[in-house]
């Protein structure tokens, strides 16, 4: 299998604060990569670099063989224009910790927004597809509701449907269940599990060890802006090699 997401030597600074200090990582097509690590270790920043919400200071990231944010001609990298970056993001779905649904649109309108505005499809064609996606995340009957009328778990499932509506090649999840009440976590993880089974390439930042062990194909443990340890989830969780991994796992397990 080929690498769908390829991260090579990525460094990222905010001012003088070096948040990512040389990250190398590969997620193969159809694989689910779970990223674990303490708060502040740079997990969100890494995900945001993958769809160029943050610009890397060094290194390169490519998705499906295409360099993100730059174009290589000869030995030079040319920065892409805003429109070209926007076009690259169509293929990369993202789900946020705080859902970030558009509050002035209904659930159905949230799902339709991308295909209508970005892909320029007709509302009629998109509507049927959006309804299907809401059905798929178990919210077929809530299409007319505004986000404020939905529970956190329902909002996050709409957010997943919204990202899927663009038919992305990869999906990025940034702690998708961290803002949820405990009894709502399961419904979101179920949707993600189904998505993984359907063959979607996923990169998931999470503290849900059970999900990582059961659904993940690989697990990456980050701390202080570097990958401390990675490997098959069961092995890393059962038998961590590094002190920092052990310390972290003992806290979350």
């Amino acid at each position, binding site marked *: 299998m080929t690498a769908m997401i390829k991260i090579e030597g990525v460094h990222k600074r905010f001012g003088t604060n070096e948040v990512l200090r040389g990250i190398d990582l590969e997620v193969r097509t159809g694989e689910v990569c779970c990223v674990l690590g303490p708060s502040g270790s740079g997990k969100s920043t890494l995900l945001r670099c993958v*769809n160029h*919400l943050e610009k890397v200071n060094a290194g390169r990231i490519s998705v499906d063989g295409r360099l993100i944010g730059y174009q290589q001609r000869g030995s030079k990298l040319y920065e892409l224009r*805003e*429109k070209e970056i*926007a*076009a*690259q*993001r*169509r293929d*990369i*779905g*993202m789900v*946020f910790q*705080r859902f*970030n*649904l*558009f*509050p*002035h*649109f*209904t659930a159905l309108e949230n799902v339709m*927004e*991308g295909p209508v*505005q*970005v892909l320029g499809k007709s509302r009629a064609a998109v509507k049927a597809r959006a309804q299907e996606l809401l059905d798929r995340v178990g919210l077929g009957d809530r299409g*007319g509701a*505004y*986000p*404020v*009328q939905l529970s956190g778990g329902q909002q996050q499932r709409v*957010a997943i449907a*919204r*990202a899927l509506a*663009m038919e992305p090649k990869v999906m990025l999840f940034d702690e998708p269940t961290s803002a949820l009440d405990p009894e709502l976590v399961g419904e979101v993880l179920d949707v993600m599990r189904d998505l993984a089974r359907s063959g979607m390439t996923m990169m998931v930042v999470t503290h849900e060890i059970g999900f990582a062990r059961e659904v993940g194909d690989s697990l990456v443990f980050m701390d202080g802006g570097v990958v401390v340890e990675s490997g098959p989830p069961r092995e890393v969780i059962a038998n961590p090699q590094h002190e920092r991994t052990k310390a972290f796992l003992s806290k979350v397990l």
Partner: protein
Amino acid sequence: MSKELNPDPAPSSPEAQAPMTVVPVRHPWRWVAVAVLAVLTAQFVHLAATNPAFDWPFMIDNAFRPPVIEGLLKGTLAGTVIAMTIGIVVGVIVAIMRLSPNPVLSGAAWVFTWVFRAMPRVVLIILFAGLGTLWKRIEFGLPFDEQLGWLFGIEDFRARLFGFDAHTVLTAFVAGMLALGLSEAAYMAEIVRAGIQSVDEGQGEAASALGMTRGQILRRIVLPQAMRVIIPPTGNETIAMLKDTSLLAFAPLTVELFYQLSAVGHRTFNVFPMLIAAALYYLFLASVLMVFQYFLERKFSAGRVRGVQR
């Protein structure tokens, strides 16, 4: 200390179990205020009804004369609409420029706001009306063409594409609209900027992640949500503009409500009733605007209130 407190604060006496009458907080001073206001209102009504200075029949005869109505429609109402339109359109553009990552655009926007907020509207109106004295004609073409001509030794070099006679274009009305509109734009720019900044950053990120461009994000996601913050102060601005159209007399523009009403007063030496007429006119118009604002605010609260369903 804590030992002195009752260790078992839960009421256990039999009275505590019985249903209780709830006595709401009393507000005796409210009734005093109501009484005082009632007396003052009665005094005012009595004054208005009996004092000959009010001269109601004269006021009613003159407040609806054709020149007054024309001034109301063509000066005050049309003026408010046009100046506010200029103000909102230019204001939104300036606000977007101000927030742009491009330092030239944001700098230009800052200077615009700085200049037009500093100037009193009366001064702007008189100044714009006087622009005709600066140039007899307003022409567009190659800038500094004469000077360039000297540089290359060409006498009387002119590279103008088109132009107008200043007096035909820059009428009192146009000058007044530009002055009021641009002044308003400076205030609207600040209002729109505050509105845009009130929208959660995550909204723009979620839209970016879908592949939307900056323009799409502004139009579809950010501005509609900013409306909730933008509309109330814009309503106030519109009401202020309605009143400020009375400054157009300095342009000088005579087709305007207040000018016409006071003209009647001065002509007939019966000034006071026409001032009252003006006050009532503005009170009525502002009230209509407030109703309009109420419905607009309700429309843009969709998705903010749990009860509102489309």
